[in-house]
């Protein structure tokens, strides 16, 4: 199991701040595919993924217990 976090517009569009999914052993790219299938109306353009609070690469592999956050374009400041 991994935990997926949704923020800002993604949280509103998904209708939830987080959920669990059986994606251990899959890549970050496969995670994005999974999310795209679950929520076809979610806009994932320019979304980055952070695994365990660090920006991850598309080919990074998820481990059981990881947290994966979908980070839409940021707008702090």
């Amino acid at each position, binding site marked *: 199991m991994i935990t997926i*976090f949704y*923020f*800002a*517009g993604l*949280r*509103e569009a998904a209708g939830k701040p987080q959920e669990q999914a059986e994606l251990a052993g899959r890549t970050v790219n496969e995670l994005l595919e999974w999310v795209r299938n679950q929520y076809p109306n979610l806009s994932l*353009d*320019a979304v980055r993924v*952070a695994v365990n*609070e*660090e920006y991850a690469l598309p080919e990074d592999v998820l481990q059981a217990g990881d947290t994966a*956050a979908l*980070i*839409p*374009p*940021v*707008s*702090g*400041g």
Partner: protein
Amino acid sequence: MKAYEIVTEPINPQLYADYVLRPEAGAVTLFTGHVREWTRGIRTLYLAYEAYIPMAEKMLAKIGTEIEEKWPGTKTAIAHRIGELKIGEIAVVIAVSSPHRRDAYEANEHAIERIKELVPIWKKEIWENGTEWIGDQRRKPEEGETP
């Protein structure tokens, strides 16, 4: 307070200036970013900020480390507020001290640029006739889209 933090209460900038002040510092730059009412003709009523708090604090600390490597002898503190903020309130404070003023100015500007690239914080603008999560540059009201 912490040197790099996400807060929910109003920010007192003096705390951060005091934190970075040291006997060897001849300059402190203190930047405060405020909620602006008008953006190219669109009136904002208030803003709502959200953050991925643990990662945001880590990224703020990473910016501080970058600054201390690029401008040796500087000391930095950064806080960003989340939740609902009214017009004029402080959303972000950046304090940098250095032996001489040039480094403090340059490092301070670097910090705000990096915050806007890197730190997982999101701003929702609330207007009289709608709302929008800001982030996608193509959908900013100043780019011509009607809110």
